[in-house]
């Protein structure tokens, strides 16, 4: 590891308790940060961007102190950064490590891209079935349209 990389690691390391989202595709680091609304609240947040990664080439990492992600947040991250991993930190130690995974159906967190879909015109939660995983594709349970990759609109 060269000195520059060491320095980056130091800058984004060490939260006492909380969650580390690692292996985020660099193209989506700040989108994941927006999903987690990291700018709100007083928790310590560390964001690393364009870090070297063996598998991804370049990755992002986000560390948030004193926070566990909700299942809705995990689902959203799985849609845009399916390679991401979640590390739960307690007392500076990783106590749980998981990959984000798409459930069979996903509710509320995605908006249907079809403007004529009933979910965009009536007060009802969206429901999508996962039609494919890489890149994610979602079939609207109402209008039956399939959204692929970049067409997926998060709420």
């Amino acid at each position, binding site marked *: 590891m060269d000195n520059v990389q060491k320095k980056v690691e130091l800058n984004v390391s060490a939260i006492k308790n909380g969650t580390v989202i690692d292996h985020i595709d660099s193209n989506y680091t700040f989108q994941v940060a927006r999903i987690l609304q990291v700018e709100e609240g007083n928790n310590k947040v560390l964001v690393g961007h364009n870090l070297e990664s063996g598998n991804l080439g370049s990755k992002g990492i986000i560390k948030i102190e004193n926070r566990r992600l909700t299942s809705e947040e995990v689902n959203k991250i799985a849609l845009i950064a399916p390679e991401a991993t979640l590390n739960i930190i307690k007392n500076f130690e990783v106590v749980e490590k998981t990959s984000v995974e798409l459930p069979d159906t996903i509710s509320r967190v995605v908006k249907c891209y079809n403007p004529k879909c*009933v979910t965009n015109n009536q007060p*009802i939660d969206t429901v999508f079935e996962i039609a494919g995983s890489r890149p994610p594709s979602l079939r609207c349970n109402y209008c*039956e349209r399939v959204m692929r990759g970049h067409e997926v609109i998060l709420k």
Partner: protein
Amino acid sequence: MNYRFEKDHVVTIKDFTVDEMESIFELADEMIPIAEGEKKDDDLYGKLLTTLFYEPSTRTRLSFEGAMKRLGGRCIGFAKPGTSSAKKGETLADTIRVAAGYADVIVLRHHHEGAARLASKFSDVPVINAGDGANQHPTQTFLDLYTIQKTCGEIDNLKIGFIGDLRYSRTIHSLAEALSLFDLHKMYFISPEALKAPEYLLEELKEHEVQYHQFDKPDAILSELDVLYCTRIQEERFADRLEFEQVKSCYRIKKKLLEKCGAKESLKIMHPLPRVDELDTDIDSSQHAVYFQQAKNGVPVRQALLAMVLDKNFS
């Protein structure tokens, strides 16, 4: 014969298997004398159907009401959204909950795609989709398939062409999807560039390993076809008036064209109706025209569906 029907609602063609469709067609065959008034029947006596039509309709609404009444049932409902509480801002979910309290089955036509699915989640009586925007029109699909089967003898191995508004026509989207479940030879899509079949439909056909070809004119392919399914260019689906003007009279099927292109004697021409100028009246008296028969088949097919959703062990 006993017909066991597992569905609570008729929302999308995707919910049906070929076997289920065939049992609908068998029951429709038995309904024909009742649909034509030759045999009296009161299997649905005491049952009430409500038609909630937020978009205009002639054939679908009349044939549902005719189907219900010929089976001894009765009908209530509205044919214009202006006469319903939607005008006062009532949500569709609330309208459905209320209507489900008044009737035994709901037939819904709505301009929003997925409206029938929404209705099925809020209704404790069966919901039948009579068209949801440009999405699905499953009862039209059943009667189209039934017509193909009755007039061609079978659905498998046919070469079927679709011409017209392939972009917005829910009738074509539903039918092409349903046909992909059968052992169909090939599908041909004929339309101007602006009205080509949507990518999602073509993707679905690929998933079902259906071979399809796209053309901008019918001339090159007419001689191959067993069935030509025409649709009207639907002015109401265009957001841009100029776009509609550019394509509105882009083709016209007439006797001369069929002769010039060497269409088969046995070619069947279908159309969900209403037509404007895409299908010349000189076809009406030819052996090719099956569109009025197709419209008539709406009654026995819808009778079969009503009987099945209202009586799970219909016999």
